[in-house]
């Protein structure tokens, strides 16, 4: 019995060690980000969003950031942002911005709409340095801000030297 226990203990130790190594590998790209970014991740996103909203309150909803939750190649990731709005002169989306958490820079795109756009939707392709959170913020013509936050897992990151 002790033999089995020992074997179990060894296996457990191995698994723990393995998890440790995996964890280290996951953390490593984050260490490559510029200095002064050691704050909590959600804090980084909140600061980026506040820069866009000017500190105005934001609410969840009315905007949808559509991107694959599991990304094979971070060099070019298709994404679409759609905001729900009638797009009339009285009530329309004026801007949609996308921010990321762990790329070298927080901004991704800042799109501006007019009632002539007829549909508050923009599609582009972005780079993702690593597994991280993304947030889309829509500014309505009445001055309200709406957000959608999602997390994406990246298996092959952009920004690696070849």
């Amino acid at each position, binding site marked *: 019995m002790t033999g089995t226990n020992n074997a179990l203990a060894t296996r457990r130790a191995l698994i723990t060690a393995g998890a440790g190594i995996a964890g280290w590998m996951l953390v490593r790209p984050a260490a490559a980000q510029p200095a002064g970014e050691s704050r909590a991740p959600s804090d980084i996103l909140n600061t980026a969003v506040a820069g866009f909203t000017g500190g105005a309150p934001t609410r969840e909803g009315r905007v949808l950031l559509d991107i694959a939750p599991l990304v094979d190649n971070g060099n070019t990731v298709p994404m679409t942002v759609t905001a729900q709005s009638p797009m009339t002169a009285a009530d329309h989306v004026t801007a949609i911005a996308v921010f990321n958490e762990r790329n070298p820079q927080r*901004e991704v795109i800042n799109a501006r709409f*007019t009632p002539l*756009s007829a549909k508050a939707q923009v599609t582009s392709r972005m780079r993702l340095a690593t597994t991280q959170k993304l947030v889309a913020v829509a500014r309505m013509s009445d001055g309200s801000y709406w957000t959608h936050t999602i997390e994406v897992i990246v298996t092959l990151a952009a920004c690696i030297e070849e």
Partner: protein
Amino acid sequence: MARTLLTVPSSAKKGEVVEIKLLIAHPMETGFRPDESGRILLRNIIRRFACRYNGDLVFSAELFPAISANPYLAFWVRATETAPLTFTWEGDNGFAQTETVMLNVT
């Protein structure tokens, strides 16, 4: 002149909302990547895009280094009259390009 691929419907009904899909050849060098010798490559990106329909601004965007090389943009426009759609890209190192496509409204 950078190569572009502009997908605009050849004709549209009055009031129809049409999708515009644009691709432009550009390296979108981030300014964070080192070259073989270890020096950081200077940033070279497209910073601004604007779409005008018969001279009126419809859609514009600021692009950042997080946008992939050969930036793709798709957005929507309500077809109201037969008029030119003008697309303008501006970027680092004086990059500027304008393309015009006629939107025929029936």
